[in-house]
């Protein structure tokens, strides 16, 4: 018996998948946003505050990086109400769980990016009479932000895929909708293939956006190359791009 692909089933149910896409996008964007806030907070406290304040944050980062996202999601939804008595709806608790996960990774990205700024550049500003806040805004942030973007992109793309775990709590996002179609028509290969392609499109759009940001923030732009040209150059020869600026 020969296997016959039945993609028509997927097309017939495509509106269902699109509904899922919408939820996935909302979940992912909120996760990225909240995760960024958490990550920035953790990174700055770890760099600036006294040791005792950083210990709980280190534990937080290690726990959320070191345990499966699935368990984090389930635990926060089912156990948090038991432990704290705080009852959250599925959507909120999912966003919180994923943001904590994403935030733990981002905090390390931010911490590394801030620390990588040449101490001499900071001293130069201090010697000229910049106040600490001015040094942060004018010297540290512009340099750190540019260098952190590829790493932030990694975490954001992972966040989109992380959101697929929300299906276990019955959140009607893309993966869940796919599973519904599979349960009705018994066509997992076709459905998963299309679902994967949709994830790929979302992930690649995120990558493109991060590339755009990187281009936007780059301080040395050869002859003001427009973004699309720059993008063509990158895709043509990723390994020929020279690092710009001093390191």
């Amino acid at each position: 018996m020969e296997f016959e692909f039945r993609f028509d089933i997927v097309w017939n149910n495509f509106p269902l998948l699109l509904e899922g896409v919408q939820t996935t996008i909302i979940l992912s964007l909120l996760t990225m946003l909240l995760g960024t806030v958490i990550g920035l907070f953790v990174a700055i406290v770890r760099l600036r505050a006294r040791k005792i304040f950083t210990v709980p944050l280190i534990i937080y980062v290690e726990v959320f990086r070191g345990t499966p996202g699935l368990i984090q999601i389930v635990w926060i939804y089912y156990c948090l109400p038991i432990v704290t008595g705080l009852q959250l709806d599925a959507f909120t608790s999912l966003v919180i769980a994923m943001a904590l996960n994403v935030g733990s990774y981002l905090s390390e990205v931010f911490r590394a990016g801030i620390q990588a700024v040449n101490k001499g550049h900071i001293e130069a500003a201090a010697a000229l009479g910049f106040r600490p806040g001015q040094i942060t805004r004018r010297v540290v942030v512009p340099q750190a932000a540019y260098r952190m973007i590829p790493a932030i992109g990694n975490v954001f793309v992972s966040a989109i895929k992380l959101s697929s775990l929300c299906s276990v709590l019955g959140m009607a996002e893309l993966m869940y909708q796919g599973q519904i179609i599979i349960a009705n028509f018994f066509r997992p290969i076709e459905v998963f293939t299309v679902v994967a392609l949709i994830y790929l499109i979302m992930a690649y759009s995120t990558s493109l956006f991060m590339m755009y940001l990187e281009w936007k923030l780059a301080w040395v732009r050869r002859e003001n190359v427009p973004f699309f040209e720059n993008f063509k150059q990158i895709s043509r020869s990723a390994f020929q791009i020279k690092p710009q600026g001093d390191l």
Partner: protein
Amino acid sequence: MHKSFGSLEVLKGIDLEVAQGEVICILGASGSGKSTLLRCINQLTIPDRGTIRINGEQIGYELATNGDLKKAPQTKLAKQRSRIGYVFQQFNLWPHRTVLGNVIEALKIVKKMGTDQAEQIAIDRITEVGLLDWKDEYPATLSGGQQQRVAIARMLAMEPDVMLFDEPTSALDPERVGEVIEVMKALAAKGHTMILATHELNFARDTADRAIFIDEGVIVEQAPAQIFFSKPNSQRLGSFLKRMSM
């Protein structure tokens, strides 16, 4: 002035008075405390004991309303530092700003000048170090000597009362040292107050009013430059000069 790093005492009591318009060269082997001394002057390194006064004002401190001296808050220290120019061995230009941007930045942020006025001053200073044609370049595209000249222009633009140079030519290719020396000689000729840590003996001999030899955290010898080089008093300075001129 005293400064220790852990159990290592780097500065073991340095007393130094500099007159307005004086050019002072500090000489000494690596690790003798030259940089630490300069860094203590503008509090990039906080000294353990001792005071720094510029025009009577104690750096890093301020007078409280009751007349007592107390540690200055960051804003006050920043204001004091803005009147002390500092040139680093490693230039420390900001890579995300052009030459012009590097020189303008402090005028706008610290002195709160408008863009036009700041740009005018910056252009003058960049011209003074001979880099007007390079004003829109980024530091990464400049040679070491050019970068150091931009760093000097950036410092000059703030019109500091005293200029500190921390081995300004030590990170340069030998053929690039000359252009930076020329700029510094011109500054000395204009009557700026300068304190330089340097290994450039010829520059020190020709330009400095006074040369100071630091070894193991103390001033071993200080004298007007001519006498300093021709008749070293101490054995330590003698052998240092011999080693350096080899």
